[in-house]
């Protein structure tokens, strides 16, 4: 596709003026020149965006890969380390921990909000245009609009030892389980996960609802006539119709779990111990506090690759569904 424009404009420009009629070769070359000239305005329009993208994204991305192959403290001369940083990444439990934590967070950031969102939307769909449902659109988007940092601060307070969560538990007679949820080794990760679930659940629900309002009501009539109950109806009609939205919700929430940083930085700083340490925070810590630039970069490459590996297959599914 892009081939015809690959020759340089200077080389073929003369052919344009002295083109002997009938000579296919030179005509082709002239064609190329003309197309390149026609393409020049387009290239110029893309140039500024490409410039910023290349300078502040592609260049540091390449540098991350480069740094990851060195042992460097940010000050003295870097030493070639080959794949050492990557070997440590997969053998050192302290470095695998954050990655495992990130995958565990997927349960809270993604699985719970998506499942809850799709079920809730299927029920609400039936009165999707009522005043209550319209008001819910505004309310449920609040967590998406505020900074994650603010969500972190709010929930740190809710989950504190004398916070609302414990107050509520005591109220229903569960005094025994109250604790500082974010400070307890057993509950810190789920507690952080709950914050993520709170942020994501509204978005998931509204995405699903948007998908479901496009479904032809006749399909439901037909399902009911065939004697399908609410559950059969859900699996036979509703779920297939929102495949694309479902894919989108999964992709967004999974990415938000893998690259979680803001919430955890604010609420636990990765603690207690390393109980809630995630790759993003570990990169930050390694690079700017431990001064292990190489190791931090290897983690950054791993995180970037991980997100791609998880997202690409999901993306293919939703894209092919939507184009077919």
């Amino acid at each position, binding site marked *: 596709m892009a081939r015809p424009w690959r020759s340089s404009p200077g080389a073929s420009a003369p052919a344009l003026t002295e083109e002997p009629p009938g000579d296919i070769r030179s005509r082709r070359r002239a064609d190329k020149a003309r197309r390149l000239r026609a393409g020049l305005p387009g290239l110029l329009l893309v140039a500024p965006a490409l410039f910023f993208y290349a300078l502040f*994204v592609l260049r540091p991305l390449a540098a991350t890969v480069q740094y990851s192959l060195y042992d460097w403290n940010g000050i003295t001369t870097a030493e070639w380390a080959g794949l050492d940083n990557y070997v440590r990444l997969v053998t050192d439990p302290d470095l695998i921990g954050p990655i495992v934590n990130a995958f565990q967070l997927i349960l809270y950031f993604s699985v719970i909000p998506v499942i809850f969102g799709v079920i809730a939307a299927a029920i609400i769909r039936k009165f999707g245009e009522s005043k209550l449902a319209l008001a819910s659109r*505004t309310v449920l988007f609040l967590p998406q609009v505020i900074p994650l940092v603010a969500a972190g601060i709010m929930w740190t307070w809710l989950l504190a030892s004398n916070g609302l969560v414990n107050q509520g538990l005591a109220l229903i007679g569960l005094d025994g389980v109250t604790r500082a949820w974010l400070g307890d080794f057993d509950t810190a990760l789920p507690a952080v996960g709950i914050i993520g679930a709170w942020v994501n659940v509204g*978005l998931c629900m509204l995405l699903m609802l948007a998908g479901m309002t496009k479904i032809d009501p006749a399909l*439901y009539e037909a399902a009911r006539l065939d004697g399908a109950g609410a559950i059969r109806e859900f699996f036979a009609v509703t779920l297939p119709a929102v495949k694309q939205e479902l894919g989108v919700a999964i992709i967004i929430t999974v990415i938000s779990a893998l690259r979680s940083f803001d919430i955890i930085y604010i609420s636990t700083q990765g603690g207690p111990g390393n109980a809630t340490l995630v790759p993003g925070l570990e990169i*930050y810590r390694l690079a700017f506090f431990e001064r292990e630039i190489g190791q931090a970069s290897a983690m950054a490459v791993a995180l970037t690759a991980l997100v791609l590996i998880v997202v690409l297959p999901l993306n293919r599914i939703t894209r092919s569904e939507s184009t077919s």
Partner: protein
Amino acid sequence: MRPSSRELLLGRGILIFVMLVTIVPFITLFVTALHPPGTYPDGLSLPEEYHWDNFVLAFQSADMAKMLTSSVLIELGVVPIALLISTLAGFALGHLQVPFRRTLFVVFILGLTLPFEGIIVPLYYQIRDYGLLNTQWAIILPLIGLFMPFAVMWMRAHFVNMPQDLTEAAKVDGASTWQLFWRVHIPLSRPAIASLAILLFLWTWNQFLLAIVLVDDPTKRTMAGALGAFQGQWGTDVPLLCAGSLLILTPVLIVFLVFQRQFVAALLQGAVKG
């Protein structure tokens, strides 16, 4: 088909429950902010005396006027430039014959899922070499670059769907590419550009990682970054922290409530396209 009353009731119940869960944290924050500063109140309890002056105190002690100015400056640096250059690029990729079009498309798509953490380390050294650490430019310039994949894809998706006839008609009338862009396409693209503007505004305002890594001075950060510093400084004074958080939340909440329709539409579309 009318839903049965039991289904309706269940649906209402779920909806109200989710709305409550969403709202209650904001209410706790608000109620706690009214307690006497320096105390450690229970989660949801009304103070004996309402300390409205906590908001004034938080505003002054955090130098919030400077924080606001800085955030606005950063927004003004990021959003217009990002909008302009992504619209140009999206127009070219979506509507013009551009050499290496497919390659460029793939290159931009690559950046869509990139976690900012993936490039933050070299970015720090790069910004340091430019001598821009601890200035608003340290956030503005990288953020423009980081927004490009989404913004260009967004505008391209919009321009691809513009009918080619329009372009042909304009060409017949003797319009140049530039005129075609400014006179024909831009006026028709206002909704797409407005939605993108909302998303970029929001993502800039809430940007945290770049702010804490590249700018030490909280008064030169984005609002989210400033809030992080505020927590570090006032984390032990819960009522004051809550008051400060609310103050920092207020501008974005006001903007959201004013433009809520556009926001919801933009965020949903943004999710699907991104």
